Every structure is written in structure tokens, then in C-alpha cells.
């Protein structure tokens, strides 16, 4: 830096550098519609040959709720994606190392989707949230479980209204880079990150599949998780450690990158002879079924207060995003079993084609129950049983919403 300004704190940490376009508070993203759960995706070409295999997924199988948020940026400037710190709805849970027990409930949330709305300067951000307790997910109960997103952008990418200083707010410090771009303004609530926490993704496998014969209803609701103890920033109120109250002055930036699919399949077939005088025929049938759940990595922060540790714990887990059961049944009175079976099996070989069958059955109903959300049916079942980005964990950045309220 030939000219400019740098400020350091007593630990020699860089606080302000006029070369860097600091992120400032651009506002709380506006909620768009209510929180919704993606409905179970159930469908097939018919209901034949299902006497031994049920046509439902487990009623205990649950997914979280999706909430859409909108943030406007400066028109025509092509803003970078906003940093959206997530303030979770509730943090009243406790964790004890004794039997890995969780006490109480808390919400586990993350940002699962960020995209610019085409032909606009608005950003659309989706959060996925589940209420958890003792490691088992359940469906959030309503609006109080909606997280809030505190969003940050460089000054020149905010809307004019967001960038404007309040009337009479005439004192402060601003810095500019060599191009004359304002990079810092003390009046516009610059981002303050109070701590970072290393995060790892949950173990690859989720819940063990529950199998049955007469009532086949697998439950994939994930229960794998990792815990990370961390030292609370020095400005956190220590009294929160000893009280069963909510820690409300906390928000974090840790977008979800890890996701998981768990599935199970079944195949049944049969053949026989249908006696009907001169019209007697041989017949063959086959049926393929596919059950699945798609989950995303979500996070929560709980308190631990036992003999081994007194402090905060970051829990990294999966929350169900979508689940379904689709099937294909084939019957033919003139073909051999092998031919009929191959038709059904080919659709179970993997998911996309089989789901395409189900889409034709359920798309209309689905559109009516998952309003205001773009839903690309062809991508609903994304890949076979497994995980993506399992080793790609990132750090969690912490801050406090009270800085910006």
C-alpha cells in the first residue's frame, strides 16, 4: 500500500485495510412465503402387485422445512453473493457427554441454496431447518422456527437505500481504495466476525434402514452427527453457560455444502398359468420399488455443562430435504418373465428414469402443495445412495445480531 489506511488491534490482527472492500450490513433478507416441507414424493404407474410391499414411506420419516428469503442488491452492478449470517430460531438445547445425550430441543439450520433471480438484481436464499432433540429430527412447528438472515455486501453493491447513511449521521471514518471506491464506512455497520470454528461434516451413513416384509416402510431420517466443542468468544455472556435459557445473540455463516442420499430398493416378480378354456394363457409380472431421502448438512449450537466440559458445542448433522417412494409395475400375458422383469428392472437401475415415471403421476399435486418454490422435477432424485462433498467442510464464522439490530 503506497497510500491508505490500516488499523490493527493489540494482537496485530488487521481490522481495517483500505485496500479491501469490507462487507457491511445490507439488511435482513425478506421472508417470501411461509416455511414449507417438501411433500413426500410418492407415485408409480399403477398399484399392481403390491400385496407384500406397502406403497408408503414411514410416517416417522421426516424432513425439515424450507424457507425462502430475498435480498435486493444494487441494480446493474452484478453484486457478488451476499454473506448471509443465519440467526437460528432457538438455542435452548443442552448436550451432555454422558451417553451423548441431548436435552431439550433446538433448531438445526443452514443455507442450502443461493442464487440470483434471473433478470433481476435480487438474490434468493433458501434455508432448511429442523427442530431436533436427542438427535432425532422432527418437523418444525411453525413460524417461530424460521431463521433470520443478516446479509452483508460491499458498500457499492448494496441498494441505494441500504447504502445511504441516516439523516444527521455525519461523523465517522471512511476509507477508499486506489480507484476511489469507498471500502469502509463506520456509519454503515461493517461486518464484525467474532470467532471462527472448525467444522467437519457428519459421518457418511445416516440412519440404519428399517426393513420389513408385510409393511415395508423404510425410515431414512438421518441421525449421524459430529460435535465440536469450542471456546466462546470473550464477549459472550458467561451466565448463559449455567442457565437453561436461549442464547439468542448469535448468528453464523456456514453454508451447507455436504449432502447425502440414502435409498433402498425392492424387486418382486412372478409368473403363472391362467386357465380359461381355449383362451388360457401364461402370464408374467414384475415390480420395482425405490424409497429414498435426500438430506443436507445443517448446524446448531448447543451448550454443554457437565463434568467434562463447560462451554459451547457446534453440532453438524443432516436434515432431511425431500423423500419419496416410486415404483414401476409391469404385467404381460404374452411375454416371458425375463422380458417383463427386465422392463421393470431397467427403471430401477437408477433413479432418474424411475423418478421421471413418478413425476408424471405426481407433478400436478406437488405443484399445488409446494407453492412459490421453483421445483425442477427431473432433478428431484439426484444420485444413488451416497454422499457428496463429504470431506469439504468449511469454517463457521460467528457474529452477533445485536451488532446490527
Amino acid at each position, binding site marked *: 500500500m503506497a497510500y491508505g489506511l490500516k488499523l490493527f488491534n493489540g494482537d496485530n490482527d488487521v481490522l481495517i485495510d483500505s485496500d479491501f472492500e469490507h462487507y457491511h450490513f445490507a439488511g435482513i433478507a425478506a421472508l417470501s412465503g411461509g416455511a414449507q416441507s417438501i411433500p413426500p414424493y410418492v407415485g408409480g404407474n399403477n398399484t399392481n402387485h403390491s400385496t407384500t410391499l406397502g406403497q408408503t414411506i414411514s410416517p416417522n420419516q421426516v424432513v425439515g422445512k424450507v424457507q425462502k428469503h430475498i435480498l435486493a442488491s444494487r441494480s446493474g452492478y452484478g453484486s457478488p453473493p451476499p454473506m448471509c449470517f443465519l440467526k437460528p430460531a432457538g438455542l435452548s438445547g443442552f448436550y451432555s457427554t454422558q451417553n451423548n445425550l441431548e436435552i431439550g430441543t433446538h433448531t438445526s439450520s443452514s443455507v442450502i441454496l443461493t442464487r440470483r433471480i434471473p433478470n433481476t438484481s435480487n438474490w434468493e436464499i433458501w434455508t432448511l431447518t429442523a427442530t431436533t432433540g436427542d438427535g432425532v429430527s422432527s418437523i418444525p412447528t411453525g413460524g417461530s422456527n424460521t431463521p433470520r438472515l443478516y446479509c452483508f455486501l460491499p458498500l457499492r453493491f448494496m441498494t441505494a437505500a441500504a447504502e445511504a447513511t441516516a439523516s444527521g449521521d455525519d461523523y465517522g471514518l471512511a476509507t477508499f481504495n486506489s480507484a476511489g471506491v469507498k471500502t469502509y464506512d463506520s456509519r454503515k455497520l461493517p461486518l464484525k466476525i467474532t470467532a471462527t470454528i472448525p467444522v467437519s461434516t457428519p459421518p457418511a451413513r445416516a440412519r440404519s434402514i428399517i426393513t420389513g416384509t408385510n409393511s415395508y416402510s423404510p425410515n431414512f431420517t438421518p441421525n449421524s452427527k459430529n460435535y465440536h466443542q469450542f471456546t466462546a468468544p470473550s464477549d459472550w455472556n458467561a451466565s448463559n453457560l449455567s442457565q437453561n435459557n436461549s442464547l439468542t445473540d448469535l448468528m453464523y455463516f456456514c*453454508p451447507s455444502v455436504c449432502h447425502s442420499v440414502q435409498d433402498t430398493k425392492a424387486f418382486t416378480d412372478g409368473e403363472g398359468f391362467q386357465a380359461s378354456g381355449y383362451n388360457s394363457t401364461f402370464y408374467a409380472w414384475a415390480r420395482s420399488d425405490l424409497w429414498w431421502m435426500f438430506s443436507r448438512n445443517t448446524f446448531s449450537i448447543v451448550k454443554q455443562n457437565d463434568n467434562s466440559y463447560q462451554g459451547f458445542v457446534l453440532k453438524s448433522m443432516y436434515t432431511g430435504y425431500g423423500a419419496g417412494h416410486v415404483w414401476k409395475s409391469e404385467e404381460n400375458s404374452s411375454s416371458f418373465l425375463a422380458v417383463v422383469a427386465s422392463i421393470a428392472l431397467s427403471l430401477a437401475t437408477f433413479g432418474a428414469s424411475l423418478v421421471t415415471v413418478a413425476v408424471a403421476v405426481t407433478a400436478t399435486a406437488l405443484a399445488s402443495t409446494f407453492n412459490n418454490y421453483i421445483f425442477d422435477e427431473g432433478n428431484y432424485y*439426484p444420485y444413488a445412495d451416497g454422499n457428496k462433498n463429504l470431506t469439504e467442510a468449511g469454517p463457521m464464522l460467528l457474529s452477533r445480531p445485536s451488532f446490527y439490530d
Partner: protein
Amino acid sequence: MAYGFETRDSNGNIGFSSEDSTWTLLNQFTAPAGSTDIRVIGNATNNRDITIGSCTEFRVTRHMLGQTVGDDEAQVHRFSNGNVNSGQGQLLTVAATGSYPIRRRIYVHTGPSAADTVATSFMIFGR
């Protein structure tokens, strides 16, 4: 505070204090979806490097962008902090030595499958 720097609003509330243990965003870069090239975070004016100044600690966050429905087969871009075309993680280890300006590169790689790699926003923080 014996020494330091504070900014306050007109009501006397502290807006910023040099006592805060904070992190400074050094650079933001979006790696395009499906790209197969190794890309370097930075820009032309500083030789495609990050100016790291006096920072001695770093964090790298990654943020997938542009997923249409949030459930596609999305691979996040990987990165490394040297010339090695492998690796991932969350820490950028940089020895802050040498004369000013101190610069460093981050190499961005595709995920395991380039075709399924979505756009990824990288943010590098230092302090």
C-alpha cells in the same frame, strides 16, 4: 481501552472497536459452474494474487451458487494454496514473510466431477 480505536454513532454506541477480534475479508471469487480449468483467486491488477498484507491467519469459506432447486448433484470446487493440484480444507496456510506487498495465490480446482460442479463462491478472510 488504553490504546486503540473506536467509532461511535450519534447516540454514543460503539460501532467498531480495535479491541474486537475480527477477521477481514481479503478477497471474494466465484469459480464458474462446470469449469475444468484450474483457476486462481485474484485479479489482474495484482497479478492474480491475493494481497495478504500483514495477516498471519486465514480462513477460506466456500458457498455453492446457482443451484436450481437445492437438490442437484452438486460438487463444490476444491482449492489448494500452492501449485499442487489437489487438496481441500478450510485453512489457508501462508507464511507472512518477505517484503511488502506480500501476495499469495489460491488455486481452485473442480470437484470429483467437473460436469456436476456448481459455481462456488470463495471468500478468504485474514487477520
